């Protein structure tokens, strides 16, 4: 799920940036530092939308670096248990398959794949129904349900299932080609 939230961060700026463009430098650095990172608490920071406030800088002893408290708004993405996501399959093996929904990695183990889908280790390994009508392989798009997430300080990993109503392949790259 996406959220638009306000976060705070203390930015350390090298003295060489002090000058007329200090603020721009600060914002650029903020984006570089924060966007694409993951915090266990808030999820992935997708994009900074605005900088609300930059507080007074504090010069650190010894280094000359200045610490600015920065308040910024950003869009974050965090998967939740029970959430339905659409994801792209990145890897298929006998144990299940991996998929990505944006920055989130999801693993769907084979017991959470419908029973009528069997693993086929052809040149492109895949899960296929007995009649061959549905196939999951690399780059397939699937709709899945998150049944668990592990949130580390820097990483969120999810377990998904496609063994439920209306889940499974939503497009088949093999069929298009």
């Amino acid at each position, binding site marked *: 799920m996406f959220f638009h939230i306000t976060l705070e961060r203390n930015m350390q700026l090298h003295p060489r940036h002090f000058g007329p463009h200090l603020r721009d430098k600060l914002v650029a650095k903020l984006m570089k530092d924060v966007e694409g990172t993951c915090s266990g608490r808030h999820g992935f920071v997708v994009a900074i939308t605005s900088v609300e406030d930059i507080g007074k800088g504090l010069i650190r002893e010894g280094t000359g670096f200045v610490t600015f408290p920065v308040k910024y708004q950003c869009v974050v993405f965090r998967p939740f248990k029970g959430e339905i996501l659409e994801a792209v399959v990145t*890897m298929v*093996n*006998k*144990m*299940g398959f*991996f998929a990505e929904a944006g920055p989130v*990695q999801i*693993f769907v*183990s*084979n*017991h*959470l794949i419908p029973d009528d889908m069997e*693993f086929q*280790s052809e040149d492109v*390994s895949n899960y296929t129904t007995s009649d061959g009508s549905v196939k999951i392989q690399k780059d397939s798009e699937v709709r899945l349900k998150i*049944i*668990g997430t*592990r949130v580390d300080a820097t990483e969120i*990993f999810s*377990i998904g*299932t496609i*063994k*439920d109503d209306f889940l499974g392949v939503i497009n088949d790259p093999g069929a298009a080609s």
Partner: protein
Amino acid sequence: MSSFEPFNRLVRLAARAFYDDITMKGDNQPKTGRGDNRGMTVVVLDALTRRQWVREEDLAKALKLHSKQLRRTLRFFEEEKLVTREHRKETAKGVKIYNAAVAATADGQQPVKEGDEKNKMHTHSYCCLDYAQIHDVVRYRLHRMKKKLKDELDSRNTIQQYICPNCGRRYSAFDALQLVSMTDEYFHCEGCNGELIAESDKLAADEMGDGDDNARRRRREKLKDMLQKMEEQLKPLMLQLARVKDLAVPEFGGLLAWEARVHAAARVTGDSNASDFSKSSQGQGYGGTPMPFLGETRVEVALSGMDVKEEGTEPDTKSANVKVLPPWMIKKGMVLTKEQRGEVKHDMKSDQSSYAIDEKKPGVEKEDEKNLQDEYFKAYYAALAKRQEEQEATSRRLREEAEKYKASTSDLSNGIFEAPYDRQVGMKSKRADDENDDVDWEEAVPTGNTGETFKLADLNAQPEASGDDEDDIDWEEG
């Protein structure tokens, strides 16, 4: 009327299945034996199956419940989506309107209380069962129950555990990214690089169960047991759901619409009919306006239509039995009389196409009647052409008459006079019966089977209703 019964049964079953152990307690009431009113919910639901829209005060009185207690119960059912409630501010006049509606339903259990509040506005609450929603709610509830048990049984939403057979290390699916091997399709132990196996497979493979596994197995047993019990105990409910599935759901509509409808129905059917309603619906109040049930009574019609067909296979029995009129004969009747033409529009239109059928049909008939039939056809076509001109003029007037006729005869209670169609058929049949000679039979032969079977049907039921059509004489002569 009858359409309520399956749904009422559904409500009663659902009440006993899901609500018989629900207590309606106020927060301040102690949990003593006296406060234990389990089962009251069932009583209230049962009472509602015998009513339609009912004022909650009246219901409370009828059930000898405190109105507050009843209201709490009804509020609960409203949340459960079983009951629709409406609140309205009304004066004594509004109460009267409702009372009149209740009287029209001839529900003896409703005390007709004159509003003594004169012009003061009071808020009154009304409630009734929402059959359509009940149907959905019950089905959804069963679905959720089953799904929850099955999901747990299949450990569908559990995180897969993996075990290394060599060193016994355990992993969960969350570690999957670290366990992936680039060389083959399996997960590998981080410690010894052994091939991991999914835990459930291991469980099946060997029974070396530690305490954990035993607990899980016991839980599985319990779930299976629950699922089985559920299937057993709720079977009547599920059967009833299946039975009700394709039936039209009875709906009362909003309170105002319902009142209006009941009034209209009462006016049309008159008092005697109203009492009929109440009898047939066992005092559940107004059994529905006549119109919705027209379709249902058609069932009987179809049956008798079949009878007619069977008997029609031997048309030479014509002599005696009035009731055994083959379908095509009835058709004929419709075409013949001007009056009937006017009323039955589509039959008129189908006249043209029916010629062809006319000609084929006689072939099926007995040989000795052939000549008569030929003569008959000649006369018939000639007369028909003439008649068609006439009918254009008369049809409109006749249609109006038909409307009146319909209104006056829409007596549902005996199920015979369902619609003007039947009536006309009846007339014709009588007439045919009266003449009762060969000519008459040939007459009956042609004019295709354009009509629906239900028209045929009632012919049997009401031979007396004849005599209106002088026109027939032409035909006999022809």
